[in-house]
């Protein structure tokens, strides 16, 4: 196992007024941004994470990359517990898990040339002897489809798609084993998205990278990674392993997502069925986070957070209705 995350939990404290004790939000408990999230990746295996805003997918990305320390749970890279490392060793280990962020416009230091930004990575981690730095920078740029001349330019000379390529090059400069892409194409035009997606898919195979691809767009996630995790309300509610198509999803939220997603077929709107509605502004404090919108809600959903259960071949579902209908025997 290359990367293992176990029971990651993270709550962001809201700064309320002096009179509100921490953890309370106008009398209700603050829901954790990420609750009990676990996943594992073999070397070279990739996973796509699908979720809407507020699902906790970005928090998961940050915890996996140790940009935020989880309140509970651990992250292990090649057996080393990253969550236990001190500042110095953690900094050195960071090289192995790199992130490409959503906004290419703010991810690059406007005062550094592209070449400086890339060579800085090489220098800090001492990956290449000094005299070879220029050549390595050119190699990296070539790998992401940018001309070598780009090294002398500043980020503001480039378009969004080009900047995102530069960000990918910067991440690759660290020679990572895991690449976390947090909504890398959402801020780009449609005709550019395909270029970046192709790039990521190619790099994944060429460099045997493990890619964790996070997006709200089901189609895009499915293109990049055969294994898919679905998040809602801070939890991973379903994991579809390779070989299990999306259409066989069992969690009511995943099904709602599949039904509601827009597609190129004219008239899809008329055909989609109302499986869930969003008429509430906040998630319930206890029990299953989806219960107020779920067509299958019943008694246990209100009090008990459904655990993730393997219903066969690594297909995990966190839903009382689904696991109950399996008679609980799926816990084998």
């Amino acid at each position, binding site marked *: 196992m290359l990367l293992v995350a176990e029971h990651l939990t993270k709550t962001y404290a809201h700064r309320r007024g002096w009179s509100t004790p921490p953890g309370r939000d106008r009398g209700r408990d603050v829901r954790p941004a990420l609750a009990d999230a676990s996943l594992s990746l073999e070397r070279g295996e990739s996973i796509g994470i699908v979720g*809407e*805003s507020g699902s906790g997918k970005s928090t998961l990305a940050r915890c996996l990359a140790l940009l935020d320390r989880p309140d509970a749970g651990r992250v292990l890279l090649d057996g080393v517990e990253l969550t236990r490392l001190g500042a110095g060793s953690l900094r050195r280990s960071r090289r192995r898990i790199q992130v490409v962020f959503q906004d290419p416009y703010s991810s690059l230091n406007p005062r550094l040339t592209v070449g400086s930004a890339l060579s800085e990575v090489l220098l800090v981690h001492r990956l290449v002897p000094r005299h070879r730095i220029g050549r390595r920078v050119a190699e990296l740029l070539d790998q992401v489809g940018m001309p070598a001349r780009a090294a002398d330019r500043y980020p503001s000379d480039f*378009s969004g*798609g*080009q900047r995102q390529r530069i960000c990918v090059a910067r991440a690759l400069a660290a020679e990572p084993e895991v690449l976390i892409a947090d909504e890398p194409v959402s801020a780009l*035009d*449609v*005709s*550019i*998205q*395909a*270029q970046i*997606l*192709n790039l990521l*898919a*190619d790099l994944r195979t060429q460099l045997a990278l493990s890619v964790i691809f996070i997006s*709200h767009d*089901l*189609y*895009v996630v*499915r*293109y990049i990674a055969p294994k898919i995790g679905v998040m809602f309300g801070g939890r991973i509610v379903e994991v579809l392993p390779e070989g299990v198509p999306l*259409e066989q999803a069992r969690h009511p939220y995943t099904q*709602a*997502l599949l*039904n*509601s*997603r*827009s*597609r*190129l*077929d*004219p*008239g*899809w*709107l*008329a*055909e*989609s069925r*109302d499986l*869930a*509605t*969003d*008429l*509430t*502004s906040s998630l319930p404090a206890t029990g299953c986070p989806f219960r107020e919108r779920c067509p299958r809600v019943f008694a246990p959903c209100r009090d008990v957070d459904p655990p993730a259960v393997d219903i066969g071949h690594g297909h995990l579902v966190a839903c009382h209705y689904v696991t109950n209908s399996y008679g609980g025997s799926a816990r084998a």
Partner: protein
Amino acid sequence: MFPISCAGSVRPNATLRVEQLTVVFRGAGRPVVRGVSFEIAPGETFGLVGESGSGKSLTCRAILRLLPRGAKAGGRVTYGGRALLELTNAEMQALRGSTIAMIFQDPMTALNPVLRVGDAIAQVIASHEGVGARASRKRAIDMMARVGIRDAPRRAASYPHEFSGGMRQRIHIAMALAARPTLLLADEPTTALDVIVQAEILRLLDDLRREHGMSLLLVSHDFRVVAGLCDRLGVMYGGELVEMGPARTVLHHPQHPYTIGLMNSLPEAVAGRGRLQAIPGSPPDPEHAPPGCVFAPRCALAVSACTEAPVPVVETSPGHSSRCLRIDRLGELRPALVGADRSGA
């Protein structure tokens, strides 16, 4: 204080006709919207699709004369026989909201953060329909319930920040439709919303459209969004309308290299087999677009004739037109998405 509009002066079965619309920024190069022409029949939904710089938003705003400072619209826009670009400011003001309404991507552009939402909607009703305060309040609450806000009488007293994004958009729609316009312009209304909420808002728009007998112009960068809702589609690129026709034929038998390229680059197109066919390069800055076909620099079928002169519109089948000189060679682009339903792919 609130002017009474002349909402009755446009018949409900009016047609929107846009002819050779141009939008130029003062002191800039070429117009950012060039020669755009289309029609929306009464009760029809028309989708305008394009990426950034395509001019779709400006086209939408030009109809209501809500262009940014320094932008000037040319050409002819008529609705129900009235020439919109030639009306006085006061006449246009009277039309907005009552006859033609617009909703935006960010509902907070329309929602005053210090006004309770019930009051905001009631104001629209009162100012356009000349109805008294109590009656407009009641209608506002009805409108809120109609757009799906639970517990509307109580929530009418809330402020916009107390609602989630999806609900704010519903309130925005309620405000726009409160005075019963006959034409609704929607500029990326669901772009900032989550997938499930997006579907609901689109469904809501569709239902309301049918109920009120409205025409709808839906502007989006997402083909899939317009596919669900629209009878006809127009594809814009670099300030020009490059293809237009019934939704079904544009989606299943696209007649322009850009449309084909765009659909080929969507992940559905490969359905797990091989790489996406990306369009090389980036969308152009319309002010500096070259003469001739604006897509030529990125087009695999381009020849020298494409860059020399503006490309005329060609009708490829009844109601379906395209701005391309190489329509006969489109087969070479191997459109991957022709035919069947993609929902399972």
